[in-house]
């Protein structure tokens, strides 16, 4: 017989009361698990959307000139002296400290040309990385594969009167119109896109890159840190992060997170109060029994151990049950409250461990005073009969 046998036997004998004791904690912990899971899922959802959104960094050559365009209107008199990167240097982006977070590197060469007697912006891209970056692009026609395949923006195609399957001549070279890019609402609608190296040749910019779009596939990775690291590698470049949209969304998630923590704290407080009141009831009910323990030589510390051990067991079980119940409810709730919400991370070991730790520590804290009170019971008053 050890002290824990007494705790376990008592809990087994008073199942109904133990269930009631654990209920407050189970509800509290389940609520926390649900709120945390929903918040996590919201964050993940936004990050996934961001990843789908495309480039979250743009690297352009640094220039002393100010941009003279606003809202799609370019004012004349701009110095068109262009500056470019050497293509060979682009690989250096993969050598930054946080290189594992760099997902897609999409270099581009940009220049103007004449097609069907009209000036048009010609962009050379690496089609593979470009399509990976802009996975929302929809094509009428075949995906460009050959070096002389071109992709026309829908506005550009109409203006230049070209359609899928046509051939166009640029700087004396013949290209096939492989596909028309469906309307995106973005600048791509009015441009002609071709293979990077082919277009470099057409524009007379062999081995030159005008700009690079980058996507960092990560959740909560330090975008601003990555920007700095790239800027260090490319002192002649201006690297900017497209964080505003994300920040706005993240702010609302943060607000929800704070709200969740507030609710969780309230629930925890009420749950702990319930444990405290029930434990006090337990102690009062067991006055005589505690008197017996004390009378046969149990120290105050032994009595405290018995009661705190009971609290620990109840807290452990309540933490586990609360975690499982919360996870199951979250699995049902998340798809209802978050558009495209996936209940990922459910039954995550770390959340389970936090739940159990929370259950045990709350139960212990709420039982500390009742246990202390029990241990200090005057044994003769407790027994009355003696």
């Amino acid at each position: 017989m050890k002290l824990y046998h007494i705790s376990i036997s008592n809990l087994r004998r008073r199942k109904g009361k133990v269930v009631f004791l654990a209920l407050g904690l189970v509800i509290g912990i389940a609520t926390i698990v649900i709120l945390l899971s929903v918040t996590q899922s919201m964050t993940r959802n936004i990050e996934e959307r961001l990843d789908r959104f495309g480039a979250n960094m743009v690297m352009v050559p640094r220039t002393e000139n100010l941009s003279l365009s606003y809202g799609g209107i370019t004012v004349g008199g701009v110095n068109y002296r262009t500056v470019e990167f050497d293509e060979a240097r682009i690989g250096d982006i993969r050598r930054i400290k946080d290189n594992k977070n760099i997902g897609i590197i999409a270099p581009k060469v940009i220049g103007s040309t004449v097609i069907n007697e009209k000036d048009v912006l010609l962009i050379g891209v690496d089609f593979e990385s470009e399509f990976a970056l802009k996975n929302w692009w929809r094509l009428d026609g075949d995906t460009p594969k050959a070096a002389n395949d071109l992709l026309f923006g829908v506005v550009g195609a109409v203006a230049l009167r070209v359609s899928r399957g046509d051939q166009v001549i640029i700087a004396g070279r013949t290209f096939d119109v492989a596909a028309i890019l469906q309307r995106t609402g973005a600048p791509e609608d009015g441009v002609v896109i071709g293979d990077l190296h082919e277009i470099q040749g057409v524009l007379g910019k062999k081995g030159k890159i005008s700009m690079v779009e980058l996507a960092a596939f990560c959740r909560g990775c330090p975008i601003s840190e990555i920007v700095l690291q790239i800027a260090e590698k490319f002192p002649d470049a201006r690297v900017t992060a497209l964080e505003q949209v994300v920040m706005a969304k993240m702010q609302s998630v943060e607000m929800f997170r704070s709200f969740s923590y507030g609710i969780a704290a309230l629930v925890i407080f009420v749950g702990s109060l319930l444990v405290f009141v029930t434990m006090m009831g337990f102690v009062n009910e067991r006055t005589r029994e505690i008197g017996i323990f004390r009378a046969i030589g149990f120290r105050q510390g032994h009595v405290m151990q018995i009661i705190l051990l009971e609290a620990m067991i109840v807290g452990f079980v309540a933490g586990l049950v609360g975690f499982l119940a919360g996870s199951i409810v979250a699995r049902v709730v998340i798809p209802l409250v978050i558009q495209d919400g996936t209940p990922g991370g459910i039954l995550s070991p770390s959340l389970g461990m936090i739940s159990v730790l929370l259950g045990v520590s709350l139960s212990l804290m709420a039982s500390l005073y009742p246990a202390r009170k029990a241990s200090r019971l005057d044994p003769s008053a407790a027994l009355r009969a003696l």
Partner: protein
Amino acid sequence: MERHFIEVHDIGKQYGSGETVVQAVSFMDFFIDDGEFLSVMGQSGSGKSTLLSIIGGLNRPTKGTVYVDTLDIYGLSSEQKADFRSEYLGIIFQSFQLVPYLTVLENVKLPMAITGIRSGDQKARALKILERVGLGDKVNRLPDQLSGGEQERVAIARAIVNDPPILLADEPTGNLDSETAEDIMGLLKSLNEEGKTVIMVTHNSDMCHYSGRTIFMKDGRMDGSRPSGWAHLQQGFIPPSAQHTVTPSARRQPKFSKPPI
């Protein structure tokens, strides 16, 4: 100075305060020797149970001192008193006071839960004692599945499992029929014959003949004492001061850090 195993010096105990003061025990002064079987007899409310709880270190007297094996038990801290009870006392409570959710075997093992005795040894010792009190076949029952006499036997088994030198019994036959009561008294007598000091509180004079001496109490005070074997029943009262003759044994080396007086 000659010391006795248990010395009760001029103790008094009052409950309440102001006009509602109840003097439960007063002017009690007597000694008990090692191996003695003492009955404390009196009517209900005479203060005998309070006296027993004071000797057991469970109820601090308002005045006076209690020495057990030269230890001033009310000079000990609360935790030291608990150690004292564990080491020196086996208490048989009125109404048995078994723990309802523990089996017979577990109730008997209860005092050993704080001793560091290995689990296997605990079980062997508890089973041996339960065999002795005639409950070897009911070790897995819960207390409410036993008769009153059987519960009393469990209470006795629990009291002696740690082999304490002193047994305190509070109305051990109070809830039993006469036949079972005689059995229980026989058991206490045999434990006394094995060397245990037994102090029994009772209001039943029929039970006193098992003890060597009886102290009478009335209204919280000693109302005399006498040898209580049947052969001595006709003898007159002997004043308490005439009782002390036996040399203390100092049979145990106490664990307490506080030096004895």
